[in-house]
């Protein structure tokens, strides 16, 4: 008989490449499928969010100036690391009521999705760039560039896949991210942060918080140093107020309504373009 006592895991926030507790000291308990409290999670505050944005902003210039090849390799590295820890993710999803089959499917699609976007890192630019034949003696070209800091409120369905499907295209496009994990099932988001941590992403480039969208959405959407915001929840009132707040600094708003992340339509380079700006450069042609 095995008399060993398991070590239980403490789930923290992931900010600036560090696992830290919320500054507010608040937590919220999560019950498993039997109704038993098995973990406590940090209930992130607006100050935690503020810190995350601060570090995300700091990380923008470094991450966006990485070569596309390098960004692709890092995304691929995340996929590799996740593959190696597949079992743990399946277990965590399963623990909170997702069937083992569904959990397995979700984790596998998540890994494939990361590989999918890793491959886009050095290709979408060619697809969405143009050399524009202007009617004057100028060379003129347009290329997609990052937007900056993207705030993401993850969906509750497919907590791991949804999170990764939103983070990956924004991240591969050179943006840095502050993401609120699924409220109902945030465990895998934090465990995913461990995967990120082991995959050579720069500090602050992806930050993951746990907490409540009812509390944090206001700050996600009103923070003036955030360039874009993503929401895909079903709360239309909240969606409206997010968009109203976002107008204060003309944020790029993406409301992904009822997207099934499990199918191929849940991935495309157009998601990268949602977090890109087109920059056009002119230069005279002369001697």
């Amino acid at each position, binding site marked *: 008989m095995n008399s060993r006592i398991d070590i239980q895991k403490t789930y923290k926030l992931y900010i600036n490449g560090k696992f830290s507790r919320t500054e507010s000291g608040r937590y919220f308990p999560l019950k498993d499928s039997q109704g038993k409290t098995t973990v406590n999670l940090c209930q992130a505050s607006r100050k935690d969010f503020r810190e995350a944005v601060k570090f995300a902003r700091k990380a923008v210039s470094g991450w966006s100036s990485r070569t596309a090849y390098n960004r692709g390799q890092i995304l691929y590295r995340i996929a590799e690391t996740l593959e190696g820890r597949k079992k743990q993710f399946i277990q965590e999803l399963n623990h909170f009521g997702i069937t083992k089959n569904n959990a397995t499917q979700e984790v596998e699609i998540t890994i494939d999705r990361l590989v999918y976007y890793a491959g886009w890192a050095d290709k979408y630019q060619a697809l969405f760039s143009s050399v524009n034949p202007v009617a004057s*003696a*100028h060379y003129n070209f347009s290329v997609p560039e990052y937007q900056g800091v993207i705030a993401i409120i993850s969906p509750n369905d497919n907590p791991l896949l949804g999170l990764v499907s939103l983070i990956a295209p924004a991240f591969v496009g050179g943006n840095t991210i502050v993401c609120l994990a699924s409220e109902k099932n945030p465990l895998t988001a934090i465990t995913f942060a461990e995967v990120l941590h082991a995959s050579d992403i720069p500090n602050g480039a992806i930050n993951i918080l746990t907490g409540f969208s009812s509390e944090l959405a206001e700050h996600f959407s009103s923070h003036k140093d955030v360039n874009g915001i993503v929401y895909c929840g079903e709360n239309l009132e909240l969606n409206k107020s997010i968009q109203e707040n976002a107008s204060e600094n003309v944020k790029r708003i993406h409301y992904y309504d009822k997207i099934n992340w499990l199918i191929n339509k849940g991935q495309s380079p157009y998601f990268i373009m949602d977090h890109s700006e087109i920059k056009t450069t002119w230069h*005279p*042609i*002369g*001697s």
Partner: protein
Amino acid sequence: MKANQINIANFRQTPVIDQVGVNERVSRLNSRSIKKTSKIAALKLALSMIDLTTLEGMDTPGKVQQLCIKAKHLNHGISDLPHVAAVCVYPSLVKIAKKELNETSINVASVATGFPSGQTNFKTRLEEVRYAICEGADEVDMVISRGKFLSGDFQLVFDEIAQTKEVCGNIHLKVILETSELSTLDNIRRASEIAMKAGADFIKTSTGKTKCGATQPISLVMLEAIKDFYQKTNKKIGMKPAGGISDSKTAIRYLVMVKEILGNEWLTPTLFRFGASSLANDLLMQITKQQSGAYQSADYFSKD
């Protein structure tokens, strides 16, 4: 610190020129619409700035005489006409022109220095300048050594101009850059600076003997060089576009450039000239048209 005290002009570091920007500036200047009284004034001004030119192997005393008579009597039908600024000939014909223009204020200009290619030894070129002056030339139009310039020997180009100016003394020296052979606007700017620093009184675009004469973009670059030189040294250098300017519309466009780049002070024959032969008649035709209201025929204007 000694190196700093020797002030050697570094001709490798002249300002760069953006060709497309120059073309845009020219086309904007060309959108000026010169009408009515300002047009007549401009036409007459252009006339007074002409160096009436003949530079042919077949030039004879007779041809030069006729040209000089034309210079003195442009047209008997129009009142208040100015006379042209100068007659420009080869050295061997200076004496004829000088005699014909005696007692007028029309200058005699002579090309020299192995015009148009300049491809003979420098001593011979200087000798030619002395000869032209001896024959009575009031102005000398020299050519620069384009080959030396293009091979990067800027100092030699500078020295040749400086020595030519020394020979000229008070005689006005116009330095022909032969812009079509210099190829880029950067080179034209550089050559302009070399010429002005070496003592040129005028800088001139072309000999008229290559397939491309003066153009507006080239002239604009030279005018800007003159302006920059003036701002640094307070010395006013003249400008002479030559070759291919044959109609009034183009001439007025040049005057607009001079006015808007250098200002009214340069709108005088002492600082701006056209090297041209057929321009005079077109200006006369236009002046007549402005005064009479009717479009003219070339048959009414003498061809000398």
